[in-house]
């Protein structure tokens, strides 16, 4: 599944998509997943955890690196994708669909608008040093 188009992006490469239910789904971008080859382990946050924007909410281990992923907005973790750690290839195969990581109930849904839209995120990625 490609990005739906209504995702917003953090500069740290997480995407967040508002859902009709009022929660927001969070994952990491295809660009970020591609950079992390050979994933071996993932640690998810606990449901019910309160998080601040920019706070680390979990870790992904690849053969060469451990990377944090961050909450794009403040809120409460209301659901985690418990199937993901056992099937890490899903992150690369479907980063905007089955590779979602957590669902957050934002404290203030309006804060999503302060994140990057797809075109701004694309420009950020293209500006990364080579």
């Amino acid at each position, binding site marked *: 599944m490609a990005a739906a188009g209504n995702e917003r992006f953090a500069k740290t490469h997480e995407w967040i998509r508002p859902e009709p239910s009022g929660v927001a789904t969070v994952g990491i971008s295809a660009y970020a997943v591609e950079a992390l080859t050979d994933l071996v382990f993932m640690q998810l946050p606990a449901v019910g955890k309160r998080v601040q924007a920019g706070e680390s909410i979990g870790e992904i281990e690849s053969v060469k690196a*451990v990377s944090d992923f961050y909450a794009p907005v403040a809120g409460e973790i209301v659901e985690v994708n418990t199937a993901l750690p056992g099937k890490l290839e899903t992150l690369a195969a479907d980063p905007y669909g089955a590779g979602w990581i957590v669902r957050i109930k934002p404290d203030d849904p309006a804060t999503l608008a302060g994140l990057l839209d797809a075109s701004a995120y694309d420009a950020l990625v293209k500006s990364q040093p080579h």
Partner: protein
Amino acid sequence: MGMIGDLLLAWWDDAASGAHNMAADEMLAAEAARRGQPLIRFYGWDSPTVSLGGFQAIAAARSIPAIAAAPVVRRPSGGGALVHGTDLTYALAVPRGHAWARSPLPLYDAVHEALVAVLDEHGVVARRHPGWPASPADPFFCFSRRASGDVVAARPGQGAADDDPKILGSAQRRLAAAVVQHGSLLLTSNPGVGAAARHPGLADVGGGVCLESLRGVAEAWTRHIAAAGGLRVIWQPATFAAGREAELASALARYREARWLERR
């Protein structure tokens, strides 16, 4: 005169405890982000110490008699456990905006290729291993694994073999503002732990001459790393942490906590 981003600042730090070294590596990352430039430090360990990969189980470490007497610290990075004390350890931190931070490989490649070049200058035939497939059943010790790019050295008088001794392994922690990569160049097999936890080192593959001037090796290694990044090396007279003792103490306390060590 180069701009500040064109420099690689380097330090030689004293031997210290595991918790101190991990705290210092974390601080090195923060300092690289603050200064906006790459920083590298070389350091030792004040006793034979086991550093666990970030996700390894403490119970696994405690079940191995060969390392039962050694202090254990958990690294912020991943990979397998290392037995320190007869190695030369480095940490290289780069700010997120640097080309080396874009993905794990560029930094890994720069450091490991640089060591191969230094060893070649010393007559040691070393190369980067293609890697063995990673799996949850990987061996406990880093030096029993082979990740793509690990530096291995041929046994004296023998050609390259798939099981050539690994002499350098590295791992990264990728933070929001910086990436820190640390790694261990194994100099000799470590007599401070039991035989089951020992691995052959550089001296065992004909690199004994390197041990005569470790600082010279570190300086040559740093020079090659810097050349790969188009950087100019400046060795600093005092540790990067001078004047930041309170910050170091705070990080040190976290690495000493059972909550961190026993997180898995």
